């Protein structure tokens, strides 16, 4: 039957003018293509949304799925510029997408899909003069979803806001199983395996890797459940989350590509011929037996053998590396490896380099960080070495800015090397080191700040180790900016905790209460719903023993209470309503109401104004019934508490006693 209407999966006439090939070659490639070109996207559409939409045509039952998504990027700014490549595992999936997705709407735009002969390196960048797509340069009208010629500044600003809102930590590293195990307890992702596979698939893409390192988000291969949960269209994922890939020379691809077929059992390796493997007792009995893979069981049989002999040798290092690559939570194996390294007087710097690679793959493993910490303890780096280590940790945080282990390690590093005993050289850090760290922490909390990786030029002549992974601030070398690898985020609670440590809690800190209060208030003005900023403000007041009412004038604009004179809690200084909230922010902010109520409680307890008890109770009730209903039980608890204190104080006042100071 002939087609009355044009087939939906008919490829369009677009062709890659940069490709040098005949029409026949091109058509032959298209006939089997698994890749789609997707156009007319909004600049604000994220990889996650694209993944969500296009996975509807994925067919996992046939071994299919989305292999990867390559966002089209503005050549200069490295920000999305309105197109993308979606690569499936199956041709049929690409065809299905042509049929069912092309012409549908994404982010209020009709998107267009074409079969593509296949992505090749370099095509991810826009080819227009501006760095974006050529078609945007011929368009004269302003397009709300794509910006326009001359609207670059606006676009950048919008984008920064969009990303800020979408800055969820989808890696959700909940302390790697705060469960009871000393090693990790499975979190959802524990069940998914084989990250190794991805190494294999990418082997043929070495050329891409330098660019991959920062610009691609390879969603298709992150098939663990943690990512799945993040791949919802309403949880945008920013480019900055892409995991830096290991450099091409990295060892991991060699070991990792050791597939089951090519695996050589230890019994068949000449260097292990003298060892009699020690089998595990009742491996498949008892509680929760694990269906060990043949490779793991084999390696463990030899591990038990060498432990029973207490052998310390190079092959022990090979064996333990093999096991921890498969099983990075294996604390006994890590421990044996560390002891072996020390007994053989191995170069621990080499081991540290191996750990750099491990850290990228296993950000959530306690053991990887523990091993690193042990190495650094033994290496005793000088300030220069510590700087390199700190740069590495800073960079490790970029794809996962709230990773608890990484922050814990950073905290340990500073604490350990600033408190060394004199016999080991004492404090390694200078005032300048702390100042640098404070600057970095401020950037982490600055929602407008962009962290950049090394520029392309720097990557090419990467001879100097100092240049590697160094974060270059935005305003430096404007000529050749590196790609954006991360952004500051005023809501990053981990960074707030680090600020507290740096500015207030650490030995040698010289805290200035005014600076801390003003910093928190400025962050509240920028993002009025930012829980971290409010908590920091509250914590600082308590720590420095400053009455909450002192910050009340700055907070009142967020309460939407129009006449401040009704508020008894404002002390002597008249309210300054100059710091009005952004008019777009819906008021009141529950945090501000809570602050007001707590100020009233503070006043009431101090005996200044007995009607404050009722005012406070009234606001708690408002919170319970209207503004923060989820916590109604808590607000009623606060309400009845302050009323009880009020009645107790009232009784005592009648008796002529001092007003009660009810709570310590």
């Amino acid at each position, binding site marked *: 039957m002939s087609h009355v209407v044009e087939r939906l999966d008919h490829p369009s006439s677009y062709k890659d003018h940069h490709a040098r090939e005949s029409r026949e070659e091109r058509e032959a490639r298209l006939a089997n293509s698994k890749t789609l070109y997707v156009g007319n996207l909004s600049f604000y559409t994220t990889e996650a949304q694209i993944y969500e939409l296009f996975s509807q045509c994925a067919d996992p039952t046939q071994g299919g799925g989305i292999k990867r998504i390559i966002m089209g990027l503005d050549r200069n700014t490295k920000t999305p510029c309105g197109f993308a490549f979606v690569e499936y595992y199956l041709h049929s999936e690409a065809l299905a997408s042509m049929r069912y997705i092309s012409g549908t709407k994404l982010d209020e735009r009709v998107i267009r899909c074409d079969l593509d002969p296949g992505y090749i390196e370099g095509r991810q960048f826009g080819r227009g003069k501006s760095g974006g797509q050529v078609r945007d340069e011929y368009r004269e009208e302003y397009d709300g979803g794509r910006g326009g010629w001359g609207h670059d500044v606006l676009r950048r600003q919008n984008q920064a806001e969009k990303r800020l809102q979408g800055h969820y930590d989808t890696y959700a590293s909940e302390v790697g199983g705060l469960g009871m195990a000393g090693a990790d307890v499975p979190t959802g992702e524990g069940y998914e395996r084989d990250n190794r596979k991805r190494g294999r698939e990418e082997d043929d893409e070495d050329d891409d890797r330098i660019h991959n390192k920062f610009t691609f988000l390879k969603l298709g291969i992150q098939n663990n459940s943690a990512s799945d949960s993040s791949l919802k269209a309403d949880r945008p994922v920013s480019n900055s989350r892409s995991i830096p890939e290991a450099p091409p020379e990295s060892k991991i691809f060699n070991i990792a590509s050791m597939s089951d077929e090519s695996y050589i059992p230890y019994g068949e390796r000449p260097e292990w011929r003298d060892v009699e493997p*020690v089998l595990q007792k009742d491996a498949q009995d*008892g509680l929760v037996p694990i269906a060990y893979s043949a490779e*793991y069981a084999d390696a463990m049989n030899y591990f038990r053998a060498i432990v029973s002999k207490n052998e310390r040798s190079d092959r022990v290092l090979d064996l333990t590396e093999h096991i921890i690559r498969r099983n990075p939570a294996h604390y006994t194996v890590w421990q044996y490896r560390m002891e072996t390294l020390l007994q053989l007087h191995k170069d621990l710097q080499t081991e540290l380099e191996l750990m750099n690679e491990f850290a990228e793959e296993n950000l959530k493993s306690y053991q990887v960080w523990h091993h690193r910490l*042990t190495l650094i303890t033994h290496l005793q780096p000088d300030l220069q070495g510590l700087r390199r280590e700190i740069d590495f940790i800073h960079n490790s945080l970029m794809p996962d800015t709230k990773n608890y282990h990484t922050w814990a390690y950073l905290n340990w590093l500073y604490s350990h090397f600033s408190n060394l005993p004199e016999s080991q050289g004492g404090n390694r850090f200078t005032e300048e080191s702390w100042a640098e760290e404070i600057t970095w922490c401020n950037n982490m909390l600055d929602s407008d700040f962009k962290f950049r990786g090394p520029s392309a030029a720097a990557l090419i002549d990467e001879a100097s180790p100092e240049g590697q992974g160094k974060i270059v601030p935005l305003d430096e070398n404007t000529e050749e900016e590196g790609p954006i690898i991360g952004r500051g985020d005023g809501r990053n609670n981990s960074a707030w905790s680090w600020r507290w440590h740096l500015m207030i809690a650490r030995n040698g800190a010289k805290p200035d209460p005014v600076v801390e209060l003003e910093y928190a208030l400025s962050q509240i003005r920028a993002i009025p*719903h930012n829980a971290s900023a409010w908590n920091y403000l509250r914590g600082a007041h308590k720590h420095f023993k400053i009455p909450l009412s002192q910050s009340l004038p700055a907070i009142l604009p967020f309460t939407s209470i129009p006449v401040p004179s009704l508020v008894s809690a404002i002390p002597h200084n008249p309210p300054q309503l100059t710091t009005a909230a952004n008019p777009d922010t819906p008021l009141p902010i529950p945090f501000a109401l809570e602050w007001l109520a707590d100020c009233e409680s503070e006043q009431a307890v101090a005996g200044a104004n007995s009607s404050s008890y009722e005012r406070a109770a009234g606001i708690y009730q408002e919170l319970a019934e209207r503004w923060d209903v989820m916590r109604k039980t808590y607000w009623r608890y606060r309400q009845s508490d302050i009323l009880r204190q009020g009645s107790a104080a009232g009784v005592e006042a009648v008796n002529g006693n001092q007003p009660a100071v009810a709570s310590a």
Partner: protein
Amino acid sequence: MPQLTFKRNAHISFFKRCLTMLPSAVEGYDGNRITMAYFCLSALDLLEALETSYTAEKRQEWVRWVWALQKTEGGFSGSTFMTPAHSHESEHTQKNPLMNPGHLPSTYTSLLVLGILRAPVEEWINKLDVDGLERLLDTCSDSNGSFSPIPLRLPEPTASTATTPPYSPPFQSDARMAYCAAVIDDMITHAKYPEFNTPGTADQGRTTASPKEIVALDSDVSESAARSSGRRSTKRTRQWLTACQTWEGGFGQHPGLEAQGGTTYCAIASLRLMGSPAPTEKWSSCIDVDAATRYLVSRQLGGLSSEGDEETDGGGGFQGRPGKLEDVCYSFWCGGAMRVLLDKAIFDTDANSRALLDAQSPIGGFGKAKGDRPDPYHAYLAIAALAMDENEDACDPSEPAVEGHGHLSGANENTVETSRRSVPKIGLKALDPLWNVSMETRSYIEECLQAVFQHKYAVSRGTA
């Protein structure tokens, strides 16, 4: 339409599947099989499905497996992965106690599993090495009051080559380990001095836990003596845990680290288990209870909440830290911590139960959040949280919180709203939020341990 039916059978099947065989994908947890087992068995216990699912023989076989994890140096290890098939091969691994040693979390979960499986009381008497437990606690304790998951030193330093110093800094000596140590210590101490127990109301015995504290102080007479003898010290541990409380009100994993829902539970529960610093003080007198309460209630997501403009699908579940996503395990950590702190749940238990029910996996169990693949850790903690929500009335009738706070002695008609639950009855056993096991199992463990000490004293008197 949110899912509100409790998939009892699917959950039972999920935990039974995990007990039968875990896939090779979880080889990473090979060292922690006993903890996986605890999650599965404690869940089946709460579901009242253990006896109906497994024969007495099967349970006894498992009990034997758990006893085999006990180490001569003290405590239990996490699995058999270092146990050679033939005994002659084990010569060296036994000689080197630092390989696969007793492990604090595994010891805690082993003891609970023995209780859940109802290991006969004679076996507790004949097989449990209570002195070994004490040794493990002492050798894992660090001089700053924290606990390491594995021993930091040998119990009795000898001239042998094995007296290597701790091979690495105790990075993992965190609040989780303190919690495991505190439960083990609690088990031992209460069994050792049964006269301090309040029969039948074991948990409330902890509420006014001063008797135990007197014991602890007694054994702690000389702080410097304890330090030099390498014994653990309640006083130092309390100081260390107190230092974990942060500007946010929650507790971090170490002093100076960001607060987190899970470590907040561990720290608060440990402090309560360790009792009061002095007979006239409350157990919680060393921490800021109001700030901790505020931190915990703020972790519940939803409504016009602390997350303000963040969109939530109804909410009701908990996050682990500000700015993070909902995760079912924090319904236990935060909800449990609140109950330990205040003896009541001052959060929206209904919304929490609904969020948990909605997050059930269609194949049984729970993942981190709705739609995630289930795993034993999240599945167990979600069920434990549901058990606490459901038994809120049973755990804590609407009496005022006597200890811990001193607030709310009157005018609290509105505060306890557990009577009008919109969530259908689920039918889970009551959970002890301190030990994290069913109340029934806790009582059984206490009985067995008391029998152990009675026997021990009888023997020592007989031989004296």
